[in-house]
């Protein structure tokens, strides 16, 4: 690693209306380093990256590349300058194949008259093979969110770039894929490519990055060499205070209850899962672990009648459920937080208030079904405050929020109905460390007060930190259960992938 600065940001400011997203920030990226960027939700990380990629123009300030001041007016120009960007929000073309998506930038600048689909697929296959088992000929709209995220990464790997920006690429990935990504990142850095890596996962930053810069409220705070510091230092710089307990205390033996909130028996779906049976006890937080595509989301969606034709029985608080539609599930007090925030979690072009109230409009309306907007705003205000939502006006569209704050809106929407049971699919995806521990605390409080909580997460430390018990799903069925001291990453990974190894040895 050398000390030459390849990219320098100098006094860049940017505001959206009344919101000052960036306030005179500085930033330096050296050749061949992996430079982490940390900061709370809405600190301005993505905004800065969008400026570097030419998607947004700064209100003031300069960008220097190799010591030269550059004006980057579009992503096309950024590409020419050797800047590659994996966006926080997945942005792929759903109608075309994975291969074409991966090589879109290359196709764009290609001088070839004809498109060689065979070559595209072959090459895409090569790149994908390091990452995951995805058929390059499939249209992207068929892929799960995690696989789409992998395609995004593959896409960035094809770019011939000097600066690679990764904005929370692992938010939807499991440990396994994330590790693959880190290996690739290190290889690239060794080749002299500079990487900006944005993540809310401290462990990732400390295991894989060289330096870390911290932003807070649109301002640059500090840069450290990773090996010089402890995670606490970063967290402190980020939120301006210490967070001592990252995870709330678990259920004690005394709190253990025999009361069963949810009982699922022999739940099956045509192709996606079968023979699922489990129980959720009062006061406990239950986790679901598994590899990408193992069927965790499908099982949970099946329970609340969101997708698929499901057979089997479900009891909620002792009552057998006969749900026909997800609305019945909501009425029964069972709600699902989607893993695909942009696709089916929020209404991007509608106001924050309207998003929060979407699940049960009856709560904010009068007897004639007339919406009381004060009540609606009050509800959004209250839940927003509870989740530490950083926003402008409650009437602003959700699209104006940062990624993590959009996630908080999605969570607020679930909490608005005072549910009896919540399924949370990747609940803290993209949420900063402070808010994350806040959400964990809220989940724990809810569990204590008798609300059933089931968490699906690809982030094993989160599962282990938050849950009292974890069920591991493999290829559509439950392959095991871990609890207490047995809840280790190794045990979970083993249960999640044992079949793979068996297959290989067989």
């Amino acid at each position, binding site marked *: 690693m050398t000390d030459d600065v390849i990219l320098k940001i100098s006094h860049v400011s940017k505001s959206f*209306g009344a919101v000052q997203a960036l306030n005179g920030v500085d930033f330096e990226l050296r050749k061949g380093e992996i430079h982490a960027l940390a900061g709370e939700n809405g600190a301005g990380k993505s905004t800065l990256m969008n400026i570097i990629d030419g998607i947004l123009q700064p209100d003031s300030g300069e960008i220097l590349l190799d010591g030269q001041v550059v004006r980057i007016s579009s992503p096309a120009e950024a590409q020419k300058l050797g800047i590659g960007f994996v966006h926080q929000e997945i942005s792929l073309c759903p109608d075309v194949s994975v291969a074409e998506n991966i090589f879109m930038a290359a196709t764009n600048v290609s001088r070839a008259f004809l498109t060689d689909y065979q070559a595209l697929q072959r090459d895409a296959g090569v790149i994908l093979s390091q990452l995951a088992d995805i058929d390059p000929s499939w249209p992207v709209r068929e892929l799960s969110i995690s696989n789409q995220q992998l395609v995004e990464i593959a896409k960035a790997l094809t770019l011939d770039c000097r600066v690679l920006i990764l904005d929370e690429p692992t938010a939807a990935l499991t440990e396994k894929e994330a590790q693959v990504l880190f290996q690739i990142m290190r290889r690239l850095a060794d080749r002299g490519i500079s990487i900006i890596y944005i993540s809310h996962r401290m462990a990732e930053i400390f295991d894989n990055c060289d330096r870390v810069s911290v932003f807070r409220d649109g301002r640059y705070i500090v840069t450290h060499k990773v090996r010089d510091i402890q995670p606490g230092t970063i967290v402190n710089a980020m939120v301006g205070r210490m967070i001592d307990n990252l995870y709330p205390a678990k259920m004690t033996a005394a709190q253990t209850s025999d009361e069963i909130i949810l009982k699922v028996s022999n739940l099956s779906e045509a192709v996606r899962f079968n023979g699922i049976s489990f129980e959720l006890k009062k006061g406990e937080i239950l986790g679901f672990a598994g590899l990408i595509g193992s069927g965790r989301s499908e099982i949970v969606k099946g329970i609340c009648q969101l997708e698929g034709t499901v057979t089997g029985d479900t009891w909620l608080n002792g009552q057998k459920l006969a749900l026909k539609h997800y609305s019945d599930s909501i009425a029964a007090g069972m709600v699902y937080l989607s893993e695909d925030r942009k696709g089916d979690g929020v*209404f991007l072009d509608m106001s924050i208030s309207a998003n929060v109230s979407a*699940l049960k409009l009856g709560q904010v309306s009068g007897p004639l079904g007339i919406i009381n907007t004060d009540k609606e705003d009050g509800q959004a205000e209250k839940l927003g405050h509870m989740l530490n939502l950083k926003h402008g*006006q409650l009437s602003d569209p959700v699209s104006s929020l940062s990624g993590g704050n959009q996630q908080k809106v999605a969570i607020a*929407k679930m909490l608005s109905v005072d549910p009896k049971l919540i399924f949370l699919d990747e609940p803290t995806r993209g949420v900063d460390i402070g808010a994350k521990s806040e959400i964990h605390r809220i989940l724990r409080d809810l569990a204590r007060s008798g609300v059933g909580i089931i968490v699906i997460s690809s982030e094993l430390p989160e599962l282990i930190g938050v849950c009292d018990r974890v069920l591991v799903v493999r290829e559509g069925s439950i392959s095991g259960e871990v609890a207490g001291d047995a809840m280790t990453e190794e045990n979970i990974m083993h249960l999640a992938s044992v079949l793979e190894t068996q297959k290989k040895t067989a």
Partner: protein
Amino acid sequence: MEVAAPEPARGGGNPLKNMFRMRETGLIAIIVLLFAVMSFASPYFLTWVNMRAMAMAFAVEGVVVVGMTILLISGGIDLSVGSVTALAMVIAGWLFLQGVDPWVASGISIASCTAIGAFMGFFVTRIGLHHFIVSLAVMVIARGICLLATGGRPLGLYTLPPEFKFIGQGSIGPLPLVIIIFLVVVLAFDFMLRRTTMFRKVFYTGSNEKAAAYSGIKTKKVIFLTTTLCSALCGFAGIIYMARFGSAQPTFGIGMELNVIAAAVIGGASLSGGSGTIFGAILGTILLSVVSSSLALLDVSVYWQDIIRGSILLSAVSIDHYLHKIRA
């Protein structure tokens, strides 16, 4: 495709209302400007009689615009509005000529139009076809039924009882009943669309159908109902037209769909669903209609009228868009 600019409502008070209000100020300004110019250009423009005549010209179509706007918000579109309106006239007129009481005939006619809407809703939500193609087919079929029932000839309904004709030709005080009906329909739906939970679901569905489904909303039902409502309002409009003209014209409303959709879009409805207001759409209707009436009042040469109308439409939309952008 459309990158909707954010609409921060900085003022106090009810922010949703503010947002809506802001969306329409540009259009209102343009219409006020048009009125100002016209009242200089013609001494007859600002007379009560002219205002009434201009209002009569768009009032009934305004009812159809209401239905279309709601359908657009839910993410649909309906090309059959003109044919279905004509069919409403033809069904009611034909029944009346067969001796059915005109009120009963009107009821049957509106029910039939509602059934047509349900038919389209079925194809869209159950079979999974696109609104565009289903309503295009229904547009052709409904026109065919009009022709079949009348042999292509308008039905003369001069013998309609005066109480019935009163709907279309009567006045209460100085206000024609048609305009009163129009105002009631517009105000009622505007209020409901802004404030009721029922119609809020229409916005959710149009904004992101999947997210709406993931909020427990029966999105197919919503789309089915907005499709049906639009046709039902066409039926209602057809009956008013019949009472007004005292005839049922099988060729009525050809090309109406584009006019109606344009009005809604000028008023801020998005063709990809999720946004729009009745108030805006009606302003769009007024703009289009007043431009036509004004050109007639000024006796502009027919050969120039289309050119001027198109240019005003394009400028108005551009100005509105620009005002909207700088305010955001």
